[in-house]
């Protein structure tokens, strides 16, 4: 399982594509064609620069990584082309260094915020809390609830009592170069893709003899228990 995930991850890092619209290719005239061509070339250039900046960040060369990230952004602004938002957020907002937690950035739990929230929870919930971040968060959650209404409700029942400690914990990601912070709030209702049932296509067992003895528990359960040893989950 581990191996497949690593392979997937690296493919994600170096094989990511920018989303770009190819509307112009429908047009038959020469001008539309030319525009589509230039757009495609800008796209491939931005893609290359993003990958280069990730590469430099992995080899601990922050100056060049930030430079390539910045250039990638600038090319996008000059050519009026948007990066896909998920990719855009992996670059630092201030210095456009690709944020890789554990390599050049640190991911920490906000101690102060937690204490502040823990003490006046009962008192403060009633009084109006109208800071922008909280409001934004509330809106976000309501949206998500609409989306995965059935699954979220099921998860909530299981998770709410056990993980109430982490529920409102705040994390922040601090850029190692310029020191700017991005804040997150832990959301236990948010589920990972591999946890869903659609994510598992096939469960492969390497040593069948061992599993044949213990297979009575069902294929799914066996896969989960010995997951570290010999199962592979694919998309």
């Amino acid at each position: 399982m581990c191996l497949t995930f690593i392979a997937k991850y690296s493919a994600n890092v170096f094989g990511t594509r920018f989303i770009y619209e190819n509307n112009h290719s429908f047009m038959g005239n020469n001008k539309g064609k030319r525009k589509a061509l230039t757009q495609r070339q800008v796209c491939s250039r931005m893609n290359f620069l993003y990958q280069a900046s990730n590469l430099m960040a992995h080899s601990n060369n922050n100056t060049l990584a930030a430079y390539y990230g910045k250039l990638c952004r600038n090319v996008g602004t000059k050519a009026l082309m948007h990066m896909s938002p998920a990719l855009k957020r992996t670059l630092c907002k201030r210095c456009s260094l690709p944020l890789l937690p554990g390599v050049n950035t640190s991911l920490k739990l906000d101690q102060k915020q937690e204490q502040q929230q823990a003490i006046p929870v009962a008192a403060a919930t009633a009084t109006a809390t109208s800071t922008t971040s909280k409001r934004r968060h509330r809106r976000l959650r309501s949206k998500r609830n609409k989306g995965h209404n059935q699954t979220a409700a099921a998860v909530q029942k299981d998770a709410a009592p056990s993980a109430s400690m982490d529920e409102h914990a705040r994390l922040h990601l601090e850029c190692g170069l310029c020191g700017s912070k991005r804040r997150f709030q832990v959301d236990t209702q948010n589920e990972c893709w591999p946890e869903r049932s659609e994510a598992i296509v096939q469960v492969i067992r390497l040593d069948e003899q061992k599993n044949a003895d213990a297979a009575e528990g069902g294929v799914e359960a066996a896969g989960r228990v010995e997951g570290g040893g010999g199962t592979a989950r694919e998309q």
Partner: protein
Amino acid sequence: MERETETLKEFLTDLVVPHHRCNVNIIPDHITMLHGTKNKKQHSRKRRAHKSSTLTRREYAQLGLNTLPTRQMRYEQALPLHKLWRGYLREHLELREGDEVPQVHEKRYEEFSKQLVKLDLHGAKLRVVQSKCPTLVGLSGICVLDTKNVLKLLGEDHRVRTVPKSECVFGMHVDSLEFIIFGQHLNMRPAERSVKKIKSYVEPFM
């Protein structure tokens, strides 16, 4: 809010003739402030957001992002970048195995050379073929930085060298293809290069 209504009341009572002042009765519900405290709050929030989001040029320089150390980087570190760039070159110029560079008399030569100018040079292995300055001739390395007037080449002796573009002719060797690029064509900012219109004819300087 309360303090401002107080000042307003004071002002209104001052306007009345002194011996009638005791009869003045202002109901606070009837006062509507046009711009109260809200305006101030909005202003401060805007300022804070602005401060955190951008990096000024001075801060940028203080972080050391404008300077590249001459001797720190190893040549081996730039090799994966070069490998990545080779893939990018194939994608950009739509090259296939066994393709050749078009000759001057061919039809697609102009289109091809336009694409070549728009190519991103970060990670390319370049060699100075010809130059006004004789000491620059023969320098080679992987290009790591590209500015308006200058290329920074990382040589095999692990040194970063600065080469001016406009004075040089660069040679580029990829697999079986050989490119000769006049540095004059490259004289623009790297971000602008993919957008800017290019003159089809530039006078050679030699």
